C-alpha cells in the first residue's frame, strides 16, 4: 500500500482534470504544479489512447514545442492555438481580477511581488485560464485586489475570448461564471468543509454550502505521478521534484 495522496498531488490531479479536452496547454515560469498537472494529463491520455496533448513548458528544453522564443507563446495564444494556461496571483478577487504586483499603493508598494508577467494579455486570449493559488486565506482571496494586473471580465468594446475558468487552492476548487463575473464553489479538498472555505475566502461566491469533496486520484494515477511525472519535472524543477513522494 503506497503513501496516501498528498495535498500537492491532489492539486496536480485536479489540474489534470481541469485540463481535460485541451489540445495544447502552456505553463509559465516557476509553476511546478501546473506543469505537473499538464504532464499528468498528457501521460493519462497516452495511457488511455485519448487525444495527444501538447504541453509547452516555458523554460524547458525537452517539453517545448516553440522555436521562436518566448514571444511565440503569446503569438500562439493570439492565433487561437493555445487552449489553456495558468495564472497565480498574490491576490485574487471575487470578480476574477488578479494582482501579481503587490499590496498597498503603487508604485511604492510595501509588499512587492515579481510583476504582471504575461497575465494582462493571456487572460484575454486563452480560453481556459486556470487560477492557481496554493494559499487559501483572507490575505490571498480578497474582496478587491490592490492592483489589477489582469481583469477578470471586460465589456464588449474589448476583444476577449479568454478568461478565468476555475480557481484552485490547497483547500477548494471554484469555477467561474463569466456572465455573472462570480466564482462558484465546486468542491472542498479532504480536511476542509464549506464553513472553512467561507471563513478563509475574502470574496462572495455562489454555492457556499457545497458538500462535494474534491475527487482523489486512483492508485494507478498516483503511481504515474510518482514515477514518470516526477522524472519529467526534474529538468525544470529539481527541488520540487525532489520533494515529491516517489522511489529514490
Amino acid at each position: 500500500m503506497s503513501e496516501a495522496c498528498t495535498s500537492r498531488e491532489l492539486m496536480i490531479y485536479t489540474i489534470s482534470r481541469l485540463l481535460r479536452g485541451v489540445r495544447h496547454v502552456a505553463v509559465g515560469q516557476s509553476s511546478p504544479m501546473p506543469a505537473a498537472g499538464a504532464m499528468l494529463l498528457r501521460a493519462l491520455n497516452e495511457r488511455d489512447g485519448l487525444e495527444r496533448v501538447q504541453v509547452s513548458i516555458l523554460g524547458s528544453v525537452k517539453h517545448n514545442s516553440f522555436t521562436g522564443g518566448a514571444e511565440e507563446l503569446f503569438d500562439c495564444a493570439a492565433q487561437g492555438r493555445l487552449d489553456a494556461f495558468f495564472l497565480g496571483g498574490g491576490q485574487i478577487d471575487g470578480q476574477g481580477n488578479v494582482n501579481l504586483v503587490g499590496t498597498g499603493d503603487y508604485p511604492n508598494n510595501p509588499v512587492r511581488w515579481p510583476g504582471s508577467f504575461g497575465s494582462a494579455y493571456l487572460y484575454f486570449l486563452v480560453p481556459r485560464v486556470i487560477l492557481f493559488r496554493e494559499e487559501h486565506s483572507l490575505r490571498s482571496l480578497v474582496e478587491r485586489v490592490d492592483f489589477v494586473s489582469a481583469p477578470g471580465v471586460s465589456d464588449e468594446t474589448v476583444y476577449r475570448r479568454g478568461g478565468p475558468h476555475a480557481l484552485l487552492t490547497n483547500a477548494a476548487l471554484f469555477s467561474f461564471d463569466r456572465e455573472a463575473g462570480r466564482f462558484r464553489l465546486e468542491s472542498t479538498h479532504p480536511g476542509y468543509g464549506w464553513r472553512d472555505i467561507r471563513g478563509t475566502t475574502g470574496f462572495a461566491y455562489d454555492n457556499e454550502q457545497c458538500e462535494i469533496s474534491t475527487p482523489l486520484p486512483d492508485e494507478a494515477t498516483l503511481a504515474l505521478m510518482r514515477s514518470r511525472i516526477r522524472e519529467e519535472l526534474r529538468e525544470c524543477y529539481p527541488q520540487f521534484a525532489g520533494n515529491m513522494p516517489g522511489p529514490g
Partner: protein
Amino acid sequence: MTDFVTPQEMAERIPSGCKLGLAPDDYAAAPGLVRMLIDRGIRDLHVVCAPIGGMQVDMLIGAGAVATLETSAVSLGEAGGAPCFSRAVRDGSIRLRDATCPAVFAGLTASEKGVPFMPIRGIIGSDVLKKRDDWKVTSNPFDDAEKIVVVSAIRPDIALFHAPEADRFGNVRLGRRRETMLLAHASKQAFVTVERISETSLLEDEKMAAGVLPAIYVGAVAELKNGAWPTGLYAEYPRDGQEVEKYARAARSPEGFQAYIRDSRSAA
C-alpha cells in the same frame, strides 16, 4: 563592423545613463559582464528587461546602477523574490515602468519593424496600462467598435546578452530563443559575451543559420567562459541553484548584498 574585445573593454563601452536591454536569467542573461559593470560603478541605467529580469537585474539595482526599470517582472525563480528590487520599490529609488511580457515584445517589434507603435490585444482594464504614459487606448481603424491598446516602440541603445558561440565575423548563434534575436534587432547595437569563438562562419551551415544573429547587429563580442553563471545558459548549462540561493539570502539586507558583491568580486 563587429569589434572583438575583452570583457573589461566591453564593460567600459557601456556608458552610464544608456538604455540597456537585458535577456531573462537562464536564457541569455550575462551576469558575468553585469558584474563588471557594477565593479566599474555604472550609474543611471534605463534597464529594459526583455521581457523579465532576474538575478543580474537585482544586482544592478542593489548596486544603485538603475534609474529606470522597464519590466514585466523581476524574480529569482525557485530562489524566490528579488530582494534588492523589492527594497528599491519600497523606498522609491528606481523609476518603475511595469509592463506585461507581450507588450515588451510588441514595443521591441515596433523598433524591429521601424514603426513608432504596435497595436496589442488585451491589457485594457489592467492597472499596468494606467501607469504607462507611453501606451494608449485607440480604436481599431477597421472597426470603430473595438478599443485596442497601442504601445510605443522600445529601442535600447545597447542589448547585452550571453550566447553559446560567435564566429570570427561577428555572427552569433542564439538558437531557438528568438526573444534575444528580437532584442538585438530592436536595439541600436548588441554586445554579446560568448562561451567560445568559432573560426568558421556560423552562416555556412544551412541547418544552423536560422538561429544565428548576423554580424550587422553586433557591435562587440567578448569571450567570457561561464558568462551566464550563476544563472543558466539555455541548452548549454543549468543554473547554479545553490549560488542563486546564496545570493538571495545575502541580498535580504543591503549590507548582505554589499558583502556578496565584495566577496565574489575577487573570483571575477
